[in-house]
């Protein structure tokens, strides 16, 4: 493998790093805001940092094939740790940093991790808690020493000290490191990522260097991402998207990865970095729009008037301009004036001024929400992907962007729809196998390389775009035999700013019912303006006026669902507003904020029963888990409301 052509030599992430250290030696590779100042590292410095850490890992006795878990927020140091692990032949396994100790213990045990690179005291404490039960875990490498002065250091080593040891012993260990680097190829495992697991235990998805690098190459070409682009890394490191964007694509094209100062400062940091390439889940865009709306409601009448005039115009003209469709001169002038007065400054405040390519994925995005950002002139597109595919399955080309589809197959991806409507794909990015789980691997990936997505969808015959209906296993039938697709209804509900999350039930029943979570920011602001006092989420959620408002939303959704031929049976007959927000700490959501339907149905069995037995209210007691893992219970009496449903003819008339 050592003396092949240059193209073939770029087949592992460490080799891409070596190339970047030469080609882009003086160009910024990482930026991080710390102590109020943006610190930056060039590719040359990055190479040195990663190499020192890799040498340090050698002194700890890391062997090829070992698993090294990484748990921290998006900081350059942890991206370096991943590449350093790869350099010595080990497999990096990033974890969700907000996971509780037991969740981490499961993953650490499953992958037999020997070492963990942990951010700070909080993470180290979790590791120490579970270390005794984990036979294979030998050591913890920590970055921030605060608060750990008194800790027993026998199993702990400092990240920076380890790098120093690596530097000091470079001459002696460099040979071994070079040997290990040379032994790697495109089939070597690049990373192992645990799926969030909407059902059951998380599965470890093994992705090879070929998966990652082919995907990075194709997707960089697709959107012509180059070394001058930049991203802000703020989504969990354990999520495949972050790995592709902040390592795969960044190393392939040599662009700069910015890291926020802290989770809370992300919005400000985004504004300061002004990335050209940006990814966010619909939830993020929704939250942003809600905050814009709230601030506009609080603004003076003149500003509101200006906002309305220019936003209304931008909504008509903006998307056309993005799609390079003909627009009249006057309309252009007015749009540009709006860009100076309203949309430009707004885009800047949102930190999206320079965004050239923006993506959203993970959930359906509301058409109004989508159009809002496109009308500002932000090239927001949708993609469809999953961990097993190294993200990309389908994506939208520039000029072919729509709210209701997820685009055409990404370069190098073949798509097939099975008879039952399930979407299958085959691609260079398709994962190798699930770690220690041949059964699941076999169920998901067949001998010819086709991978089942678990999603039901269809390809539009005229445009070739893929449309996703729902998770295949969630699609069911109502008692009368009509189709039941909960997500379809949930997404329509969630397009209302007042509704944060909702779960619709109805499989095998006569009618559909829903649990609803209100959006505390949006409804809270509404309550303030209407002089409704409340002291907690629970109190606001139970307020009769809030119920009435949500009821009107539900009925509006029913009216819209009624128009769909296949799914008109999915109208919601009864609903309740939950007394607590669904939370990943309680196992109700995955760490990527997706609802775990079955677990919720089991946990709130009593509520579900009440929705179907016709009662007006129900008393319930729910166990909650606090952030630090302690448990408590909350009790509430919940009101249940009926919602009006429609039949198709009435609406059409």
């Amino acid at each position: 493998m050592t003396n092949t052509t240059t193209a073939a030599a770029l087949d592992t992430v460490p080799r891409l790093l070596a190339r970047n250290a030469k080609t882009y030696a003086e160009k910024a590779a990482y930026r991080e805001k710390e102590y109020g100042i943006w610190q930056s590292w060039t590719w040359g410095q990055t190479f040195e940092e990663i190499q020192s850490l890799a040498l340090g890992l050698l002194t700890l006795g890391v062997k090829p094939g070992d698993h090294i878990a990484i748990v921290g927020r998006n900081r350059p140091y942890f991206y370096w740790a991943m590449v350093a692990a790869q350099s010595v032949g080990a497999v990096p396994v990033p974890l969700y940093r907000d996971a509780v100790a037991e969740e981490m213990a499961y993953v650490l045990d499953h992958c037999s991790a020997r070492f963990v690179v942990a951010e700070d005291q909080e993470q180290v404490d979790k590791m120490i808690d579970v270390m005794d039960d984990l036979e294979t875990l030998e050591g913890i490498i920590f970055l921030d020493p605060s608060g750990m002065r008194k800790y027993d250091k026998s199993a702990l080593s400092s990240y920076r000290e380890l790098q120093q040891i690596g530097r000091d012993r470079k001459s002696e260990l460099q040979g071994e490191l070079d040997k290990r680097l040379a032994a790697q190829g495109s089939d070597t495992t690049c990373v192992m990522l645990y799926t969030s697991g909407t059902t059951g235990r998380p599965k470890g998805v093994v992705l090879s260097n070929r998966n990652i690098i082919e995907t990075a190459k194709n997707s960089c070409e697709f959107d012509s991402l180059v070394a001058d682009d930049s991203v802000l890394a703020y989504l969990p490191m354990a999520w495949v998207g972050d790995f592709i964007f902040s390592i795969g694509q960044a190393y392939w094209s040599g662009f700069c990865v910015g890291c926020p100062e802290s989770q809370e400062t992300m919005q400000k940091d985004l504004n300061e970095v002004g990335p050209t390439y940006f990814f966010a889940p619909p939830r993020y865009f929704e939250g942003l729009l809600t905050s814009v709306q709230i601030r506009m409601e609080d603004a003076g009448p003149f500003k509101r008037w200006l906002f309305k005039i220019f936003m209304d115009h931008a909504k008509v003209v903006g998307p056309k301009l993005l799609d390079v469709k003909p627009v009249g001169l006057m309309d252009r002038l007015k749009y540009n004036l709006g860009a100076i007065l309203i949309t430009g400054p707004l885009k800047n405040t949102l930190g999206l001024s320079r965004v050239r390519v923006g993506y959203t994925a993970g959930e359906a995005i509301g058409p109004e929400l989508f159009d809002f950002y496109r009308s500002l002139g932000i090239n927001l597109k949708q993609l469809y992907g999953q961990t097993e595919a190294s993200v990309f399955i389908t994506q939208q080309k520039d000029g072919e962007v729509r709210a209701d589809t997820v685009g055409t197959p990404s370069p190098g991806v073949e798509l097939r729809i099975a008879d039952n409507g399930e979407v299958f794909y085959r691609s260079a990015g398709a994962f190798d196998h699930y770690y220690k789980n041949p059964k699941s691997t076999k169920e998901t990936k067949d001998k010819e390389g086709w991978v089942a997505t678990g999603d039901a969808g269809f390809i539009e015959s005229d445009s070739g775009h893929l449309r996703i209906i729902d998770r295949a296993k969630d699609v069911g039938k109502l008692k009368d035999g009509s189709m039941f697709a909960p997500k379809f209804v949930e997404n329509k509900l969630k397009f209302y700013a007042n509704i944060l999350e909702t779960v619709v039930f109805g499989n095998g029943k006569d009618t559909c019912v829903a649990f609803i979570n209100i959006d505390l920011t949006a409804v809270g602001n509404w309550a303030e303006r209407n002089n409704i006092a409340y002291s907690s989420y629970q109190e606001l959620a139970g307020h009769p006026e809030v119920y009435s408002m949500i009821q009107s939303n539900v009925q509006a959704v029913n009216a819209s669902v009624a128009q769909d031929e296949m799914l008109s049976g999915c109208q919601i007959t009864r609903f309740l507003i939950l007394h607590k927000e669904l939370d990943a700490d309680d196992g109700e959501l995955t760490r990527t904020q997706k609802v775990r339907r079955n677990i919720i149905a089991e946990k709130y069995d009593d509520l579900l029963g009440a929705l179907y037995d016709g009662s007006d209210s129900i008393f319930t007691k729910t166990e909650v888990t606090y952030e630090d893992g302690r448990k408590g219970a909350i009790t509430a009496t919940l009101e249940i409301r009926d919602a009006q449903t429609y039949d198709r003819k009435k609406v059409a008339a």
Partner: protein
Amino acid sequence: MNAVDTYITADGRTIGAPLMEMKNITLRFGGVTAIQDISFDIREGEVRAIIGPNGAGKSSMLNVINGFYHPQEGEVWFRGKKRLAMKPHQIAKQGIARTFQNIALFKGMSTLDNIMTGRLTHMKSGLFSQMAWWGGAQTEEVANRAIVEKVIDFLEIQAIRKTPVGRLPYGFQKRVELGRALAAEPKLLLLDEPMAGMNVEEKEDMSRFILDVNDEFGTTIALIEHDMGVVMDIADRVVVMDYGKKIGDGTPDEVRNNQDVIDAYLGVAHD
């Protein structure tokens, strides 16, 4: 007590010689005796708590320690020297910083500027140099800003760096106040009811910061606090006051089992 003896705390830290000694302090306001013949010491590196019911004289004691009140009788020894009557800013220069029971921040200024004021005692450049923003003043500002940023990082308040303090919630204001005291890089940090009015979560955060300050910078801490749970958890030694007199002194366990204390404060008053 004057001998240079050390002791080791329950969690294994070695506590050094007395940093500050109060010898037979008596403080009167006209006819009212606020503090009556109290002696105790605060040792290098320890977390020392002063507790007592309302009106016991705790805040007066703190004001004696930081030189705001001058006791009519008794001596204050600091770093092995007897302290003469001084102005508060002179005391601050000696390395004593404090926070207040009722937050005393500049409400219209940002978090950053408020914490920066904590650096004042360390600034040497003259008025004109500062106005001209030239030479020494510039380098000095940069150096001080670096220290302030370390404090901001330490207290995890990056997100409110530029926010006017008046707009912050109470818990954050308390944290900013602690930040300002820390920015002075004190030898001895006095905290007057740092947890007052906080919810459980905020108290836990604050406790962690206090312990981390002690651990990280080796700062000696003297605090007044009402919340018994907090005091017993974080203090190494506790002085108990009642009606201006000292009725107990020792480790949290000793104090908890002291009959006088139980009668005067923990038991009778609260059950």
